[in-house]
């Protein structure tokens, strides 16, 4: 795996010390393309960390129980499960290859012993069940220990199978496959607070799914213009509100965020709120549009704020104020003078994510960084 970096940007100016706790995978330059991590997501409790890579694999890490004999070491993450989520496909109608790269992973809220997550590539979303098995039944009547069937006529006595402990085995099995609903590349998925539905967003449309129903989805946002030549912006990220199951936001490549209420109409093309910060004309350059494109949007846990990430900054918005963000943090302002080089080597198109920490003090996570 290629390493990912982390950084912190505490809201309110507290002094937080950040340091690398653990680096997984290869740190050197010599990393296979398929091993490059393309998405990262913690579970809600933080005990599991799922990563997706360009080769379509998902690797889940689990935090070890903190050891009392080593009180200063934080829980380390070790590999918990690895499975191949998506395979490369070929769309014969359009003569297009569909990449297996995992674009997003989202955990479902835990309900029971098994864990569920959604993983998506450009076109297909899959629901995976990750379950543990640490016991094995022994003493079957109809088959031997090695699995061979016994001759029923030879069985003279019956016994009750006994469960015996075994080495922990983590199994991942695909439970649902949600396919054929997106013409463009899927960039976001978000599980709703009702725990029954979720949305998937591509460049121009957002669809609403029910977790149990794979053959149907509802289109709730469609920004495709009648004439594609009039296209000026695309959807870059979308998320459901953490508490209000009817509210979602989506960000655009123009640096705007729209909040939609699904109660107002079936098709939420008209937003309920529109968040945009006026552009500073003094910083205009060839690349203004690129660096203003929002790459990620996340609600705070409270649901009162949301955070957006564009190329150079992180902004915190109050949902009650659409005119400008309440906080703006420059992440790497020193890159502003190097935009042309970054454009040449494609780094300017890198998409960064952001997330809130548990207490809604802002945390910024660099998804991957090419230097």
């Amino acid at each position, binding site marked *: 795996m290629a390493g990912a970096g982390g950084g912190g940007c505490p809201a309110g100016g507290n002094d937080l010390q950040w340091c690398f706790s653990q680096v997984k995978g290869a740190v050197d330059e010599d990393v296979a393309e398929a091993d490059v991590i393309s998405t990262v997501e913690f579970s809600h409790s933080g005990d599991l960390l799922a990563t997706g890579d360009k080769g379509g694999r998902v690797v889940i890490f689990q935090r070890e129980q903190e050891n009392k004999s080593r009180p200063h070491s934080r829980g380390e993450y070790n590999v918990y499960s690895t499975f191949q989520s998506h395979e490369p496909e070929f769309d014969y109608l359009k003569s297009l290859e569909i990449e297996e790269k995992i674009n997003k992973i989202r955990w479902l809220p835990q309900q029971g012993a098994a864990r569920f997550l959604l993983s998506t590539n450009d076109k297909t979303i899959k629901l995976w069940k990750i379950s543990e098995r640490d016991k094995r039944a022994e003493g079957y009547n109809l088959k031997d220990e090695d699995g061979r069937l016994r001759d029923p006529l030879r069985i003279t006595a019956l016994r009750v199978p006994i469960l015996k402990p075994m080495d922990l085995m983590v199994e991942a099995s695909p439970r649902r496959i949600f396919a054929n609903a997106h013409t463009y*590349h899927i960039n976001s998925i978000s599980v709703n607070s009702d725990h029954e539905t979720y949305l998937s967003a591509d*460049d121009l449309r957002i669809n609403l799914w029910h977790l149990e129903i794979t053959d149907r989805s509802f289109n709730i946002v469609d920004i495709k213009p009648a004439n594609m030549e*009039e*296209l000026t912006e695309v959807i870059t990220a979308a998320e459901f509100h953490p508490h209000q199951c009817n509210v979602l936001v989506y960000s655009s490549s123009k640096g705007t965020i729209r909040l939609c209420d699904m109660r107002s109409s079936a098709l939420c093309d008209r937003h309920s709120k529109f968040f945009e910060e006026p552009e500073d004309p003094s910083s205009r350059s060839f690349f203004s549009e690129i660096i203003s494109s929002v790459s990620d949007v996340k609600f705070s846990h409270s649901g009162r704020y949301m955070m957006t990430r564009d190329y150079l900054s992180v902004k915190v918005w109050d949902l009650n104020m659409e005119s400008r963000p309440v906080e703006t943090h420059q992440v790497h302002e020193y890159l502003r003078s190097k935009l042309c080089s970054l454009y040449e080597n494609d780094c300017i198109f890198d998409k960064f994510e952001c997330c809130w920490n548990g207490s809604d003090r802002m945390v910024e996570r660099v998804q991957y960084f090419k230097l």
Partner: protein
Amino acid sequence: MEFKLEAHRIVSISLGKIYNSRAQRGGIKLHKNLLVSLVLRSARQVYLSDPCPGLYLAGHPGAPALPQQPGESVAGPPACWGEPPPPAACAAWPEPEPQLELPAVLEVPRAGDAEPAAPVTGAGDTLQGGEAEAAEAAWRRVEGPRETAVGGAGVPAGGSDVFPQGPGAARRPWGCPPGDEDKMSASPRVDGCRAPSPAGPEPPVPPPVCPRKRGAEGVGGGPADRPAPGSTPLKKPRRNSEEQSGGAAAAAAQEEEEMETGNVANLISIFGSSFSGLLRKSPGGGREEAEGEESGPEAAEPGQICCDKPVLRDINPWSTAIVAF
């Protein structure tokens, strides 16, 4: 001037990105290409608005003669590539018939789009028109072989020859459909338009532009003034390199320029009307993508493009490219 150079460089980089995106796994990425097209538009606007009097980016009399049009002479390139082409000018073309050819490859993704596109629209004024036509013709010429290979539907029996002439497809992304004023008049190129100087004085040649200018006579050369040299496309490149005298900016820059223009030319041909949105309205505009329509047919013929590079250089694709955008 530096802005122009910078803009020029950015345009070439952007076009290269769009070109390369065709070969990317997973199909064309709409978001990235939209952003690249916005950068292109910004750079183009800077390029157009940079006050450099009499700047000829459209190339010059060096525009290649069109072999398939015997007897035709190609006028010099448009004096000012910011000019809106009066549609009526099409008729003023020395050519007997407007270039109606449209590679089927181009047509497929651009259903129903009329292009304001560039060079051809220049077909308005006598001279400028001629050059635009030449440029356009050159484009089509590039497309010709590709098209036939792909089995372009719109190509008449001109076949493998450069310019399938004659009554071709009515659709012409690059074309100047007679009477189709509306689309062209809306071209934002008007913004940076300078007064046309048909027989104008020798324009200062910007260094990065095609070296062909060096040896060219004044842009104002009459439409019928196309000199014989390089009557066949193959000769042109050699002549060009010989003519690379004098030189303002480094010849190296021009070398680089030449290499890039090959791609530029291809890109223009390939994406043709896709950029008409950028041209029509400044706030709007984008490109048709993602459905992967373009990647299919176009991805098929990389080899063809390569062989046409020398030809492409001749037409000063830069001007065409810039104008096109």
